[in-house]
């Protein structure tokens, strides 16, 4: 951020990839129920980001000290594949960045998941970034909310997030990798449909007016993401159950008359 300002991020009112200031990257697709073993799952493609989320639980809290007698404990683990970026081979295992992302996403989810309904249990949310192009935390969060719903875990509201940034002197929705690397600010945010901000981070330099604009832009953007989530569920549950389970059926072709 604040790096090489010689790179022209805005040209003739368009961004590097031809987007307008308040356009999302493409593709932007979300699918739920993509994993067999997880209780709930989602796969999101957002620009070049490809992220898989799996949810397990609510289940017995192990180790025991994680159990909270008043509510479910949510654990959020964010992992990036070693081949997620075009640059060097990444390292396996946790790191400080992944740790912090897990924490802020977990806190956002704890705001809306009805954790009080499942005391002393654990809900695990695993976010796996297969490919990364900037904005993975908000994309992971948007997928995680969908995976939790897919797992049948009750939530007061969905949540969805998008990063607004400042690059080339303009406030831009859904900043991409170059805009983040060479721009002036990055503000990942997540909203509920009723307008509560459940995730907010900021890095860079922005005026108060620009922050106000960023907040508006992100909230407006989140509406598109709620649509995306709703459509994923409409698709998932509109399909006949038999078709949805076809893989499983093929897997477990048991003719009870033959047993």
């Amino acid at each position: 951020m604040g790096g090489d300002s010689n790179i022209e991020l805005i040209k003739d009112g368009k961004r590097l990839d031809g987007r307008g200031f308040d356009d999302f990257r493409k593709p932007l697709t979300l699918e739920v129920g993509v994993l067999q073993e997880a209780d709930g799952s989602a796969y999101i493609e957002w620009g070049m980001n490809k992220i898989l989320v799996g949810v397990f639980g609510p289940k017995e809290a192990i180790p025991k000290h994680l159990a909270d007698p008043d509510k479910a404990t949510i654990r959020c683990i964010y992992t990036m594949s070693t081949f997620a970026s075009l640059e060097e081979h990444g390292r396996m295992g946790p790191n400080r960045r992944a740790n912090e992302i897990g924490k802020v996403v977990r806190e956002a989810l704890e705001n809306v998941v009805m954790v009080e309904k499942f005391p002393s249990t654990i809900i695990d949310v695993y976010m796996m970034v297969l490919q990364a192009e900037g904005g993975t935390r908000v994309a992971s969060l948007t997928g995680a909310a969908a995976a939790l719903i897919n797992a049948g875990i009750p939530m007061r509201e969905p949540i969805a997030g998008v990063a607004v940034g400042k690059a080339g002197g303009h406030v831009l929705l859904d900043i991409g990798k170059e805009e983040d690397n060479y721009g002036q600010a990055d503000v990942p945010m997540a909203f509920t449909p009723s307008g509560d901000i459940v995730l907010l981070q900021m890095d860079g330099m922005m005026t108060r007016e620009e922050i106000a604009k960023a907040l508006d832009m992100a909230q407006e953007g989140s509406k598109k993401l709620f649509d995306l989530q709703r459509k994923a569920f409409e698709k998932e549950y509109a399909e006949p159950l038999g078709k949805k389970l076809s893989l499983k059926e093929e897997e477990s072709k048991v003719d009870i008359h033959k047993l």
Partner: protein
Amino acid sequence: MSKFSVLSKVRKEFITSFLDKGKRVDGRDFMEYRHIEAETNVVENAEGSALVRLGTTQIIAGLKVEIVEPFPQEPDRGIMITNAELLPLASENFEPGPPDERTIEFARVVDRGIRSAEVVDLSKYYIDEGKVLGFFVDLYVLDYGGNLFDAGTLAAALALKTARLPKIENGELIRGEYSGGLDLDINKLPTSTTFTKIGDNIILDPNVDEEMAYDSQLVVTVNDDYVVAMQKRGTGSFKKSEVLNLVDKSFEKRKDLKKLYG
């Protein structure tokens, strides 16, 4: 509590009694694979990648290429390392944290198959004094439906098969610009077959329940001409005649598996 620990004994009895009657819980023949499919170049940022689905098992493999220091004992050869992670999102039975012995075994057995088959001629990838190309193949298990080894070997081999090499200029990699592939010989690319012994019955391609019930497993990895890796797993045992029979089966099954390599 994990469903595996609670149900494993009951399931094992159920599965064994089935096998004794010549049946498998999912209706397959003893030596029959589940549906297999593969997609390649699924992660564009990687130099090569493949997603393999074997039944409900899903494994993704990605290759990154780097300029690295060679191993001291082989200063004029590139290096290749295969690694793996059993992601906790793939199964209730996988825990987050540092790799356990099962993960390490999985990675090493796949690594041995690829390496022993001499798929990549590493002597071609010397760049300069103290500089060689390093090939890092990493496997992530996304959904665990049994039989990681066969799916893992297919995914790793396909990531290499479809790889693009970054351009090298003045001893540096130019990321995002490519200078062709690895030009691999399909006849050398290994295929793995995992045989599972439950009681006295031996079956191919265990599903997740069968894998939980196993006494022992024999992973046999072959290419057109050679057996390139084997691993006996579990506390049970095999007879000599069984091993030889399974090696024959592995070569036979390779004919089908190899079709995935194009």
